[in-house]
């Protein structure tokens, strides 16, 4: 159970950071933009976590 919690925490941390970055990158902020940004941030967060786990696992 703890493992899934840390996984969710890491994904969440990455997601918040990347969604913030998305908001910084775009010009006009509207609902569609935020939706696409949330999806993209989730994808990138998953990629970041998978990369960290792949790098650490020996």
């Amino acid at each position, binding site marked *: 159970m703890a493992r899934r919690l840390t996984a969710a925490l890491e994904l969440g941390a*990455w997601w918040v950071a*990347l969604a913030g*970055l*998305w908001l910084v*990158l*775009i*010009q*006009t902020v*509207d609902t*569609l*933009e935020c939706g*696409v940004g949330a999806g*993209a*941030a989730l*994808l*990138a*967060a998953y*990629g*970041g976590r*998978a*990369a*960290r786990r*792949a*790098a650490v*696992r020996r």
Partner: protein
Amino acid sequence: MPAPVRRYALAVLPLTLLTGLYVVAHGQVSPGGGFQGGVVAATALHLLYIAIDYRALRRVRSVALFTLADAAGEAGYLLVGLGALLSGAAFLRNVLPYGTTGTLASGGTVPLLNAAVGVEVAAAVVVLLAQFLDQAIVIESADGSQDQGHTPQGGASGRTSEGRTPQGQKSAPGSEGGRR
């Protein structure tokens, strides 16, 4: 690679992925589009090979999945075109309403096409580089020249690589103990 490079790579990889997705999504608003964003995203994935090692990349990248994604991106592009055909307009004609300019919705079907091209180009670049990497990186355990990215042949990609040294590395996985 030294530790700071590894940490930098693990920090920048998601940022590069997000930049790639940002460039894909805003194809019709600012410079960019499916191709540029797809290449940036694919390069992000290969940061794993460049900064860490080939095995880390192989764990994340399964060539079969990316070949499938390549086909799916292509199919997506076709379906969006056929969608226009089905709704009575010409192939690839825009049928969605034009939103306000400067926003994501302003392109009608263009953002959908950009997304399909983005997926397709990213997957194609990953598969292309997989061929390059499988060729260039082989087991060198015979003469002990430590090669950064060892890959036991016959791995996920399953192709034997002519680059293998003549001694035949069938026993390669067994002799992997010495290398990193």
